[in-house]
């Protein structure tokens, strides 16, 4: 780890179909909110990091040009980073690196997406190579469903059991989103509705899948000295990890998933966490698909391999359970992809500083945030805590 770094402010838009604003105005909405939250102005910002999905998502190339004014980046160093779904974690890590290196005191990090304007699945299909895999991608659902089937086959998880647990995850995320004013989808759903929803990529159904959202998130990182001066309750970065794996989907073992497993291990090591299920108070896991959320529980070391459905069915990760996951309603209920991984971090920071409103997990002191990107290829984890 470098020098100590804290999150001193966060800002989120209302996520959803935001045809009421153009893309730069959406970005500015999150930036303005984060500056207000931190109680600082653009003058205090030393540098700006931003990230989005591939430019084809909205059809404007290199959006750091488009958003320069909206991010308040005039006459400041600007860095764009993108790693597909894990972009939000990647840009958060860059904000951390920049401040931890001592080269900046305060850095603004912005993630955004406006998915209602293009074709998300078609865009994601272009992440595959054009010769071999693109044809067989079927967007994100094709990839993540294939992974989920491989996982269920590997650990002999009966179809009905997997279905039941996945439906419970959908119901609890939808319930949680009712407490989150930023969430895109805010309706309660029943187990039967999830199990009988229309098939997207069998066995995954409509209510197992995230929406395509418009939204932006901004997070402000500060050095120890600045954080202590400016902020009453900073969220301290305790550990982070990021790992990538092979581009050819069939080359690595997606049921075990090295990148997710090792990214978490690295973050736990830095944070001094030995038993994450016991020590963490809350987790914001990147969960665009219910079945896949269970693979994450296992990779992040929250339960043994192949046992995630059992833990889900006994309520371990529900509100009020041993380790509440995604009290925000998660990615399942809001997914402006370039912002999503950073929203996970912002939500984790809100939790450990007691600012999460109706979705607050009482007394949370240590929180995990996570995101995954590419063709199941990248995973990033950041742990935040209430104490330095």
């Amino acid at each position: 780890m470098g020098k100590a770094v804290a999150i001193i402010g966060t800002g989120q838009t209302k996520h959803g179909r935001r045809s009421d604003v153009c893309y730069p105005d959406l970005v500015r909405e999150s930036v303005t909110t984060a500056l207000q939250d931190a109680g600082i102005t653009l003058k205090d910002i030393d540098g700006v990091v931003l990230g989005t999905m591939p430019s084809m998502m909205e059809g404007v190339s290199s959006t750091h040009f488009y958003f320069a004014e909206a991010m308040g980046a005039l006459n400041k160093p600007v860095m764009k980073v993108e790693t597909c779904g894990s972009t939000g974690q990647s840009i958060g890590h860059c904000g951390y690196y920049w401040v931890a290196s001592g080269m900046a005191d305060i850095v603004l990090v912005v993630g955004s997406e406006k998915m209602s304007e293009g074709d998300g699945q078609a865009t994601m299909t272009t992440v595959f190579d054009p010769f071999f895999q693109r044809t067989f991608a079927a967007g994100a659902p094709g990839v993540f469903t294939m992974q989920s089937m491989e996982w269920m086959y590997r650990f002999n998880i009966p179809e009905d059991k997997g279905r039941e647990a996945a439906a419970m995850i959908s119901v609890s995320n939808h319930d949680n989103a009712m407490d989150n004013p930023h969430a895109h989808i805010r309706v309660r759903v029943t187990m039967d509705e999830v199990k009988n929803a229309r098939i997207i990529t069998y066995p995954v159904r409509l209510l197992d899948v995230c929406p395509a959202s418009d939204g932006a998130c901004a997070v402000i990182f500060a050095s120890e000295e600045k954080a202590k001066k400016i902020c009453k309750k900073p969220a301290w970065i305790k550990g982070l990890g990021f790992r990538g794996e092979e581009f050819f989907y069939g080359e690595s073992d997606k049921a075990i998933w090295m990148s997710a497993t090792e990214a978490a291990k690295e973050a736990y090591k830095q944070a001094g966490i030995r038993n994450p299920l016991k020590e963490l108070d809350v987790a914001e896991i990147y969960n665009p698909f219910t079945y896949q959320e269970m693979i994450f529980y296992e990779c992040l070391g929250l339960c043994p391999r192949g046992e995630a459905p059992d833990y889900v069915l006994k309520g371990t990760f529900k509100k009020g359970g041993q380790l509440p996951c995604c009290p925000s309603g998660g990615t399942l209920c809001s997914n402006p992809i370039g912002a999503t991984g950073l929203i996970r971090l912002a939500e984790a920071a809100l939790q450990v500083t007691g600012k999460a409103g109706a979705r607050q997990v009482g007394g949370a002191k240590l929180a995990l945030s996570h995101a995954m990107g590419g063709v199941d290829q990248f995973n990033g984890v950041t742990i935040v805590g209430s104490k330095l």
Partner: protein
Amino acid sequence: MAKEYRTIRNDVALPYQWALGKTWTRFFDGLKEEQIWGTKCTHCSRTYVPARTFCPDCFTDRTEWVPVKPEGKIVSWTLVKATYHGQVKPPPYIIALIQLSGTDCGFHHFIGGVETENIKKLRQKLKKGAKVKAVWNPEKKADIYDIAYFAPVK
């Protein structure tokens, strides 16, 4: 009622001409002859298909060409019902990850020659490890579609 603001339609469609390079040119030339080529690393002995210029594990280009039988077993699959712009064909269709005999990785392709209406029956046919065999396209263009699909074998 809140005012509805305008949107403007604009399409971006660009032409590309992608280079295959020597390894993948040979791989697709092989498909045209109904031959699947893999490469085996002489250092770690792993065999990958499609063929690779270098071993991804060892980062060495000490690989040798090996013929791969057009058959294998199902690692995973899904029945696609979702639609999106530029999709290869109208759903429903099945995509799968297949481990071809003698290789150390999964290979993406379609599963065909099965009914998709009855999911219970489909699950029976496409059980974990179910054997499948390539069905060749009668018209070949030296691309991935030279294999029409993989079909379950009894």
